[in-house]
């Protein structure tokens, strides 16, 4: 779920912040979760597909082919723009961005240049308990490129081209240079990812490059109003990498300035293993992509009615959900925050809670909500974090967790036993009911049976009984322990305690 800054980065930041201010803007690309590609009918999901198996003459850029706009991709982009509080102009268009590279089949990328689908929005996140707002310059739509695979077998280097990814819808979200620390950049990315996943428009997976982040970063003396010379940082493949890379780069730039050198405007790549950025390309002039309007596509007319309809269909976003979780379920702000940061976690929570319906009253529902939150954010999260497993891919289903909590509520198993059952269910996927039945895990609540055990314990521990009667209350705890031991931990304490007290008072 949420990553946190490492101690290492925090100390470095303290060093940075003294004299210099860091200025960061992010360019984020997200593949869209559409069924088909941006301009053809090929499937957009190429995971596990054999190279060049998800392509057709259109996305391979054959002579004579023409693009047709994927309506769903446009809607996803508009939806994202709305979630980011952007303006959606009524008129938009596609343009050709021209450059040569073997992974770009047409020799140009269909993108959007001067009239993007949206602009002038913002995103907010919580920074040290305060709301931080970052401006969104624009959100536009384009197509992804293919991938090159470089082979170097036997000294004969070869480059292979895989076009499965070519033409996958790609949304670009450009921020204003409003972030003032690498931590803010990470928080921005986390919040943005959360929104994209909530909307269902992106898988949000940075590790699969479905979500990519490039950063523009510069530093300046505190109090200075002009921006410093910026560098562009690439190859950051996780939230942690974003924060580490930008921390490194900020410090590098400051050291350069302190040593009396100038910052060179350049593209630098983050090298994860070495923890440094390295120079990739010095930018002397702006790249000339010779943009011009895509003549194969008519302009996009985005009617107000369409925008309203899309807004209508938008799912609840993280901020709204968090507020509702507190109000409706009586959760703590912290729990609500943790649960709503990731839509899958929030959905898991609500599904689990729903299975327990109907509830006698609000109090019963809120008690169950607290229990679900505790189990989800406690034992389950610990397990998932250790194994690095996604909550949607884990074997504990909302049904299992609801069942487990019901077993505890009914007194069939104890909280301690429940932890064991959870472990087993997590490993095998078996339902808690079945585990409990098969392994005979249960609490002893039969009064007659428990009375027998109490008798045995009293008979076997005359000293403790005497102590208790002499007024030593702690002896009751000892005798309780003995009952639990004899029952192999199955005795229900809430039944045993009154039995034991009653028996001891009988003399």
């Amino acid at each position, binding site marked *: 779920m949420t990553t946190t800054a490492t101690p290492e980065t925090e100390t470095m930041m303290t060093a940075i912040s003294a004299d210099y201010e860091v200025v960061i803007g992010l360019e984020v690309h997200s593949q869209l979760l559409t069924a088909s590609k941006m301009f053809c009918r090929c499937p957009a999901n190429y995971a596990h597909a054999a190279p060049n198996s998800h392509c057709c003459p259109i996305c391979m850029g054959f002579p004579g082919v023409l693009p047709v706009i994927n309506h769903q991709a446009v809607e996803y982009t508009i939806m994202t723009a709305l979630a980011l509080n952007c303006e959606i102009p009524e008129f938009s268009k596609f343009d050709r961005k021209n450059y040569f590279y073997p992974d770009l089949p047409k*020799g140009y990328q269909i993108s959007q240049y001067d009239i993007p689908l949206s602009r002038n929005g913002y995103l907010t996140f919580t920074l040290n308990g305060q709301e931080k707002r970052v401006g969104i310059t624009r959100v536009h739509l384009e197509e992804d490129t293919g991938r090159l695979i470089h082979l170097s077998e036997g000294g004969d280097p070869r480059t292979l081209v895989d076009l499965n990814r070519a033409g996958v819808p790609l949304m670009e979200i450009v921020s204003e240079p409003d972030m003032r620390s690498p931590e803010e950049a990470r928080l921005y990315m986390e919040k943005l990812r959360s929104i994209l996943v909530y909307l269902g428009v992106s898988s949000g997976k940075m590790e699969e490059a479905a979500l990519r982040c490039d950063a523009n970063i510069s530093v300046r003396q505190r109090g200075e109003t002009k921006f410093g010379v910026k560098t562009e940082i690439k190859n950051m493949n996780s939230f942690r990498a974003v924060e580490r890379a930008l921390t490194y780069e900020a410090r590098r730039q400051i050291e350069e300035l302190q040593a009396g050198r100038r910052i060179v405007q350049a593209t630098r790549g983050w090298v994860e293993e070495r923890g440094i950025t390295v120079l990739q390309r010095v930018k002397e002039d702006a790249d000339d992509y010779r943009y011009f309007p895509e003549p194969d596509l008519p302009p996009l007319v985005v009617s107000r009615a369409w925008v309203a309809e899309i807004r209508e269909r938008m799912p609840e976003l993280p901020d709204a959900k968090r507020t509702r979780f507190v109000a409706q379920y009586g959760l703590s702000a912290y729990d609500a925050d943790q649960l709503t940061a990731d839509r899958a976690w929030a959905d898991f929570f609500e599904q689990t809670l729903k299975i327990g319906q109907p509830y006698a009253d609000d109090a019963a529902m809120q008690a169950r909500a607290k229990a679900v939150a505790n189990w989800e954010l406690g034992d389950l999260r610990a397990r998932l974090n250790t194994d690095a497993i996604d909550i949607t891919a884990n074997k504990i289903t909302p049904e299992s967790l609801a069942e487990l909590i019901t077993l505890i509520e009914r007194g069939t198993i104890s909280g301690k036993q429940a932890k064991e059952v959870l472990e087993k269910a997590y490993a095998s996927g078996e339902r808690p009911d079945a585990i409990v039945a098969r392994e005979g895990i249960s609490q002893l609540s039969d009064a007659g049976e428990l009375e027998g055990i109490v008798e045995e314990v009293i008979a076997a521990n005359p000293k403790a009984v005497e102590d208790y009667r002499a007024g030593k209350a702690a002896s009751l705890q000892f005798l309780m322990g003995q009952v639990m031991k004899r029952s192999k931990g199955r005795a229900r304490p809430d039944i045993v305690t009154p039995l034991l007290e009653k028996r001891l008072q009988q003399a």
Partner: protein
Amino acid sequence: MLRLREISSMELTRAHLDRIEQVEGSVRAFVTVTEDEAMREAEHVDQLRREGAKLGPLAGIPIAIKDVLCTKGIVTTCSSRMLEHFKPPFDATVIKKLRAAHAIMLGKTNMDEFAMGSSTENSAFFPTRNPWDLERVPGGSSGGSAAAVAAGEAMASLGSDTGGSVRQPGALTNTVALKPTYGRVSRFGLIAFASSLDQIGPFTRNAQDAALMMQTISGHDPLDSTAMNETVPDYAAALTGDIKGMRIGVPKEYFVEGIEPGVRASVDAAIKQFEALGAEIGECSLPHTKYGIAAYYIIAPAECSANLARYDGVRYGFSARDTSGDIIAAMSETREQGFGAEVKRRIMLGTYALSSGYYDAYYLKAEKVRTLIKQDFDAAFGRFDALICPTTPGVAFKLGAKTADPYTMYLNDVFTIPANLAGICGVSFPGEFSEGLPVGVQLLGPAFGEPTLLRLVDAFQRVTDYHTRMPEVATKRKSAARKRR
């Protein structure tokens, strides 16, 4: 198109294949002749007819296809080394429509490389010659398709018109050559030269056949977002022969110095003829015409510089075997070797026009001119049903006469380019000859005004016989096609 009661499709196709064999040695209209496929298709059509199937008017009609249109499994070269062995994995939409209508494809016709040129001399393989005078060019870029119909090698053909590439060769070869409204015919499968200007159009010998061709190839296509969802009218029904009261404008900017007297005389005669048929003639002005060529030679190369970027030798077509290990160098080498001089010239022009710092001065300005030209036409079509003018300033010129200076070659399209810039329709049809050579008269119509243009041409052809004349090369021997008449 023809009354196929007395002759089988196989006989008709065989007759045209015989004609091809007879004249190709001199005319060279075809890059590829698909004899076996043609005969197989013809046999199939005859079979269907025997079975009593209801067949459309194009069934069994032998047609030639400009080699810029993708034909599944059949080499589609664009007359370029780059695509010399390229077999498309799909049919262009117009090809699908012709196949569905059971037309017989005879083969693929020669053209200026990637449709860039006005003489078919820019073919990477060989020039096509004008059937009316083998020393002269058939025009271009659809010279092969024009020559094939003129020489009786095909009953109809398809070309593509970006700045006059259908109408200009039509004028030079005595054929009816129609450039439809932009968006009337799907471009899917048309190998792009300049996407905002390209349009597929037919060559036929008369207006009736043009109507049948248009009926088959027109209409919306989900694969082409620029193909408009506009109802396809009944083109044949428009050919009433009655043009009384129709208003024809004569744009004064199209009757300027530089027009050959023979061409001028032919157009004047046509105007008189239309007047005699009851049309009302009036003068009009299209003041921005003179900027057409300049705008065109910015916009078309700009679009072509991007459209032709895909030819990099990676996925299909010619690939220079570069062993340096540098991928980008290999791509450059492929393009260096694969493209001819005119194609390279236009790619460079377009790249330059789109470069930062020049974009506003060239591309943007050209687009503004384009808007002005459109407005000129809008105003004119407020007063007239059609405009009449020459298709070209002169008759067919000799091979090599204009290859040295690209600019004089470009001037050949001065009267045809504005229609492409404005997206309107235009047709060139045979007028009075000039010293034994065909002259094309052009009619321009508003968007989706094809029925009007065809009605005018048909009315003209009911009272003239220029369109029935065939060149000597096509009449040397009796052929099945002649017998049929």
